[in-house]
């Protein structure tokens, strides 16, 4: 152990993102801003790399959903080749992707958010974490760890390793499925489904206790964006894009993902490294929209699996038209875990999945490729251009969390207005400001192709611009 610890003078310790809250002269909250404070530069530094390295490099945008990035990237590379992925390769990509939804949603719900539900929004911050849940609710903690572990192990079986698997390539995947792995994955589905249904059960029962959060956590009208297939079925891997308005009415349907640029613009502001996509036809002030589980449920008309669809119907009954409270991201996320597990079972029971032809081969036939998919947090867009040698010349990435930037900012403002009184931030208000962001499950790592999620500096700024109160987290 240390003989001596040197403590340097303590200056303010900033995290990776911060929130500023502006007060008016009467002491009420007038504005709030979420600043994302890190940036890595993938859009530039991939330049000059061979296109076929991209699924590996861009996986490193995010260790939480590397499969989504690899897949969107591989789809962009498929488009550069101009090939169709063989049937079995396509199914194997989908299974890995669904497994990632299971693990990523489990992480968001159990490891990061469940302490708020189980220990309480106002609980002692020292206890309000996974270790606290392990002590107080060991069975729930084990459920979460086990569900996430199952998803990760499926990725490991099919992709070689749990984080940054290397099996996803242009044209398909590298290895066919073995009978042993097929049986292992199938055997794990019923127990995983039991956990997911059990969790959804207690979460639904606890909803009553969160009236205040439901009412104030990013509960406002916006547009929503997501993929659907078969004219309205929930889609996670591919399909056509659909925008709906705040009343739930479809405003643009059947959008080919490769035409995203006609509909989505990106705005930059000087106080955050995170850009703000918006619905182009309405401009950046009016074009605010949300993506992710809540948005996918709002845009879809049904789920294609039995249990998930029953829950989906119940979810849709929460509100007439679109469901607006961002608190319900958690709810939709749990149903999506059930959908992902049921869908995996369907795919693994398709005899075509055992075919050994899992990859097409070609050379670049196009100088541009766009790959779009739903990631756990929402729509993910990879757009590449290559030269005649297949070297990348230009990259544009629009990441799920980015789409939600405008809504997260507005959500922070709503919670701040509701819970902050005067010139000091109470602990419960502080946690709720973080919890509203947590509901979106932002992956700040992905979103700026950067960052750590859970460090905040929250500053309360008076009408004259002076910092009245600040809290590091």
């Amino acid at each position: 152990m240390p003989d001596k610890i040197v403590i340097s003078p303590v200056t303010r310790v900033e995290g990776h993102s911060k929130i500023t809250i502006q007060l008016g002269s009467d002491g009420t909250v007038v504005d709030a801003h979420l600043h994302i404070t890190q940036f890595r530069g993938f859009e530039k530094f991939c330049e000059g790399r061979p296109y076929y390295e991209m699924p590996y490099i861009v996986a490193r945008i995010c260790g939480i959903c590397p499969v989504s990035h690899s897949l969107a990237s591989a789809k962009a590379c498929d488009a550069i080749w101009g090939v169709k992925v063989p049937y079995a390769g396509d199914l194997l990509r989908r299974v890995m992707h669904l497994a990632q939804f299971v693990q990523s949603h489990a992480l968001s719900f159990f490891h990061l958010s469940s302490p708020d539900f189980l220990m309480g929004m106002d609980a002692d911050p020292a206890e309000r974490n996974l270790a606290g849940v392990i002590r107080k609710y060991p069975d729930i903690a084990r459920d979460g760890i086990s569900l996430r572990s199952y998803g990760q192990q499926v990725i490991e079986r099919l992709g070689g390793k749990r984080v940054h698997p290397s099996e996803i390539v242009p044209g398909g995947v590298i290895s066919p499925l073995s009978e042993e792995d097929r049986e292992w994955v199938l055997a794990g589905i019923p127990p995983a489904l039991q956990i997911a249904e059990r969790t959804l059960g207690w979460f639904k029962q606890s909803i009553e206790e969160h009236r205040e959060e439901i009412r104030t956590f990013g509960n406002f009208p916006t547009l929503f964006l997501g993929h659907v297939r078969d004219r309205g079925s929930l889609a996670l891997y591919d399909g056509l894009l659909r925008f709906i308005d705040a009343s739930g009415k479809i405003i643009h349907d059947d959008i080919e993902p490769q035409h995203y640029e006609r509909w989505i613009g990106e705005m930059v502001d000087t106080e955050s490294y995170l850009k703000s996509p918006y619905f182009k036809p309405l401009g950046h002030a009016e074009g605010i929209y949300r993506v992710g589980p809540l948005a996918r449920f709002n845009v879809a008309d049904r789920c294609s699996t039995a249990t998930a669809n029953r829950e989906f119907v119940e979810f849709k009954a929460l509100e007439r038209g679109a469901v607006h409270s961002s608190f319900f991201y958690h709810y939709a996320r749990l149903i999506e875990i059930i959908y992902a597990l049921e869908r995996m079972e369907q795919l693994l029971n398709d005899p075509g999945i055992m075919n050994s032809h899992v990859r097409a081969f070609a050379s670049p036939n196009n100088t541009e490729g766009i790959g779009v998919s739903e990631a756990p947090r929402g729509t993910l867009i990879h757009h590449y251009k290559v030269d005649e040698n297949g070297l990348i010349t230009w990259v544009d990435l629009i990441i799920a969390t980015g789409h939600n930037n405008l809504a997260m900012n507005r959500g922070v403002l709503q919670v701040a207005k509701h819970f902050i009184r005067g010139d000091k931030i109470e602990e419960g208000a502080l946690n709720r400001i973080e919890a509203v962001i947590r509901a979106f499950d932002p992956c700040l790592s992905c979103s700026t192709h950067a960052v750590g999620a859970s460090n905040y500096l929250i500053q309360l700024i008076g009408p004259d611009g002076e910092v009245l109160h600040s809290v590091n987290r």
Partner: protein
Amino acid sequence: MSKMKIATVWLDGCSGCHMSMFDMDEKLIDILEKVDLVYSPLVDAKEFPEGVDVTVIEGGVGSEEDKHMLELIRARTHMLVSYGDCAVTGNVPSLRNRFSVDDLIKRSYIENVSAHGDGGGNVPGDAVPRLLPVERPLHEVVRVDVFIPGCPPRPGLTYFMLKELLEGRMPDLKEKTRFGL
């Protein structure tokens, strides 16, 4: 005997190393019962505390804020673990080093956008930390005690490392890992 104080920190990386720590699965319960997790993306600690026994750091040093944080951590930590290829070598984030910071910013915030908010035409610069000219591995900035390579390090290796450190031994990784795994 008081529990060992452990911290995990995420600098300029993808969080994949933290995912690999979670990938210890049930062994995570075993570890969390034996230690005090005093600072981590997983807990609500407000400030990096003093007197931390072991700090495991993911990611390289990309911004002024990363550098400041790392120096503070070093001053308050007995055993500092450089965890994963970004921390150990710079890895993927250091691919940016052949471009200037201006070129990186220009691509993302001028060329690849269609609108500007208040102040129009500007790039992020207010209320965000400046990037360092190059991405650097941890040991180029501070002294490092243990290096764990991998992208990310395998969960089994992480458990072995933590168990050894918890029992007061320097982990001997010769038979456990090598670069390129």
